Structures are given as C-alpha cells and as structure tokens.
C-alpha cells in the first residue's frame, strides 16, 4: 500500500477532520476536551477570513480503512506573527491513522507544510508537542526542529473562558 494524495480540505471533509481530531486527542489522553463540532469547523475554516487551513491525506477506495474511511490523515495550520521576524506558520494538529503509518505520509505532509511556509514567506514553522511524546519529538528533531522550551525556557500559558470573561468585564 503506497498510493495516497494530499489535498486542500473542502467543506465536505469536516466530518472526517473531526473524526481524526478526536483520534489524535484520544492518543494525547485528552479526548474529553474536544468540544468542537462539525458546524464550528465549517464556519471557522471555510468563510471569508478562515481561522485555520487544513490539508488531508486520502487513499483510493480499495485501500479504505477497516471502518470504511478514505481520509486517513490531516494537518491543520494557521499563520501567526513574531514581532521580531514577521510571519510564521503554526502547525496546530498533525495526525495519520495508525494503520497508515510507516508509508511516508507524515513526512510528505510535513514537507508540504514547510513548502507552504517558504512560499508564503514565513520565517519559521512552530508547533507544540507533549514532552512525554518521544516518538513525535524524535520525528521532528530528526528533521531539524529545535525544542524552544528546553533551549530558551519558553513556557506555554493559557487563560480560559471564565477568566477571560472576568478580565474583560473589569476596567
């Protein structure tokens, strides 16, 4: 099994994208945190000013998964900005179904994304990885990624909805 195509996601893909998002969340042991719906994905990814961009990996019908799926991998990204160097490509999610690994799909997706980054004049591609996820960290480091948390001491923070509401109502 080796044939697959990489293509830009279309509105019809939102159900498959959500399925893969949930699979990845399950792997990260955070499945119950996914509250996103297909409607959110549709509204937020395919309007005039999309919040994200997405590429999907698709196999031919005869190679469909054990549950009958042909969309077997995806990557979701958006553009961010570093006030020191300018535009960046931020890789939010990147996943290939287990039964389709080892065929170069992940590698191909990452190369496609870095190509997009270079073509859109981004200085860098950023993403986060859980520190216990050794296979992924190794995958990225083999391809030249640097770990900014250990090299520079950056720590990721979050302020969630209840505190945002609190903050925005204080003046």
């Amino acid at each position: 099994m080796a044939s697959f195509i990489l293509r830009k996601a279309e509105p019809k893909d939102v159900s498959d994208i959500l399925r893969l998002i949930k699979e990845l969340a399950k792997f990260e042991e955070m499945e119950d945190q996914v509250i996103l719906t297909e409607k959110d994905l549709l509204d937020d990814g395919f309007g005039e000013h999309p919040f994200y961009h997405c590429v999907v990996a698709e196999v031919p019908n005869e190679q469909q998964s054990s549950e009958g799926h042909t969309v077997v991998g995806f990557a979701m990204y958006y553009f961010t900005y570093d006030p020191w160097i300018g535009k960046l490509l931020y890789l939010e999610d990147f996943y290939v179904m287990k039964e389709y690994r080892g065929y170069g799909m992940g590698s191909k997706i990452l190369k496609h994304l870095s190509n997009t980054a270079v073509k859109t004049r981004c200085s860098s591609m950023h993403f986060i990885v859980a520190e216990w996820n050794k296979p992924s960290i190794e995958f990225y480091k083999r391809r030249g990624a640097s770990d900014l948390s250990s090299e520079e001491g950056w720590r990721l923070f979050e302020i969630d909805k209840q505190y945002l509401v609190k903050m925005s109502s204080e003046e």
Partner: protein
Amino acid sequence: MNYTVRDSTPEDCKDIMRLIVDLAEYEKMANEVKLTHKELEADGFSSNPFFKCLVAEVPEEFKSKEGHTLVGYGFYFFTYSTFKGRAVYLEDLYVMPEFRGKGIGKALMSHIAQIGRARGCVRMQFTVLDWNKPSLDFYSSQGALNLTATEGWQLLRFEGDHLEKLAQSAN
C-alpha cells in the same frame, strides 16, 4: 495619571517597533529582532492583516523621559484549537518601566480579552520565559495556567536552513 488604550494605526508602527525592541532587550534577545517598522506596517494594516495591536497612550504632559507618549502595547492574533475552536493568542504585552504599576498592562490585557470574547474566542494563550518571575506572577494572578508545567507541552520550531531543507525535499 490617565492613559488611553486604543487600536493602533499605520502611523504607530515606528513607536511599536521601538517598544518591541525594548521588550526583546528585557528578554535578553534584542539581537534577534530583524523586523522593520515598514514590514510591520505592510503585515498589520492590509486587508488581510497577520496581527492586531493595541497601544497605550499618555497625554503630552506625562510623556516619557525621552518624549514618548506611546508607552505600552498588546500584540495579538487569532488562532484555532482543534479541541475548542476560536482562540486569541497574546504574542507580546509590554509597558515601559517608568509607566508600570498603574494598571496599564492589565488594561491592555482586558481589552484584548474583550475583543477575543466578541469574536467568539474561548481561550487566550501566550508563552512566558521560565525565569521571568514578575510576569509569571502577574499572569497567575489573572487566572492563567502554566500548561507546560501541568500538561508537559514543549514549544518546537523549524526555522532558517532547517525549514528550507525540509521544504526542498517536498516533490
């Protein structure tokens, strides 16, 4: 001392760049700033901006020792979480040392939280250097959670030659 928080204009870019360099100096990384105020203008004020920036301004009679009235900024853009949807990312938050302790930092953050909520965002994320105790304390007091500490997230990056190399290997 009174101050106003407002959306930035193209004319503010020189001042914003000055404050960006100030913050980079504080973070001990001033030599990493490659961006010019012209690029900032092009990337932030077109029909498809890559970032937004709020500025804090004081009246003439309270200007800084060097004669500046733009004394703080909050630099942000919109991102996407595959778990929860729309999010706002706080890239830079800075107030000149002589204007601290007056609630300007908090005001900038509140305004951005408000803008985020109006746009349907469910969270605000940002990174902080692990040695930056004053900032770590400030954000904790506002309800921020350190996701690197609690969930083990590490920030990674592909840049420069590594990004080019990865891109060129796509066919």
